[in-house]
């Protein structure tokens, strides 16, 4: 069994809210986003191999990665970590190099669930990822 993914698209806005719980401590979920060695293991998509090309995980730091498919075709991505707050918040831009100028703004924030996993000391965390059109000021009004 896996935890459900809840995807909400607020009418009249260009962004999505994705909410998902993880049966792991908040720190571990955050580290899976912060550590490039862990990040490339899950970012996907399936069938592509990801390699980090730069990774400066701090406010204003750049990052980039490449994804290679079975035919050897390479897809590049880059962005900037705008805000990094330990175990709490990551705001970053995201751009596919094949579509320059189409920059999305992602926000990942963790909120500790009130539910404790029975018989386990593991905390649950529910990071919330917001992918938005970078040009949409409304993206933040409903935060």
């Amino acid at each position, binding site marked *: 069994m896996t935890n459900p993914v809840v995807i909400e698209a607020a009418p009249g806005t260009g962004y999505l809210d994705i909410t998902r719980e993880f049966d792991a401590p908040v720190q571990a979920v955050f580290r899976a986003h912060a550590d490039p060695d862990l990040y490339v293991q899950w970012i996907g*998509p*399936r069938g592509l191999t990801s390699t980090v090309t730069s990774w400066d995980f701090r406010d204003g730091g750049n990052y980039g990665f490449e994804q290679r498919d079975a035919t050897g075709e390479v897809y590049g991505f880059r962005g900037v970590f705008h805000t990094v707050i*330990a175990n709490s918040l990551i705001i970053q831009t995201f751009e596919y190099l094949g579509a320059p100028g189409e920059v999305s703004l992602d926000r990942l924030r963790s909120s500790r669930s009130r539910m404790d996993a029975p018989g386990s000391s593991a905390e649950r965390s529910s990071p919330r990822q917001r992918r938005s059109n970078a040009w949409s000021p409304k993206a933040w009004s409903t935060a």
Partner: protein
Amino acid sequence: LADQPDQSDALLDRAFSALADPVRRAIVARLSRGPATLGELAGPFDITAQAVSKHISVLESAGLVWRTREAQRRPVHLDASALERLTSWIDQYRLEAEARYRRLDAVLAAEQTPRPGRNQRAQESWPQPKEKPE
């Protein structure tokens, strides 16, 4: 059409923006129960048949509905396959997100498994930029 991503994307754009209007969503909901004329569609709404006609034109250019050309009444029909294209696009996004987070689950599970040399790493904090003024 499926082989032409640009056209297909443009149609998706038009379809989603057409459905951003509550009246047009209500019209689509009505048409899902069967074809209707402009007059029949205008009935439940506090708008003129002319306004409904405009809404139908938007839905038509988005490929969501079509009108019988020959008949005098020219009833409006819903193109069910067009709606399926929208939901399959949403499902595709959802499926990709679900797969991504299942992979993250696996990474988290592997990290939680106590292993020599790994445990220490789990305690170790990753770079904490806020504490590094330089």
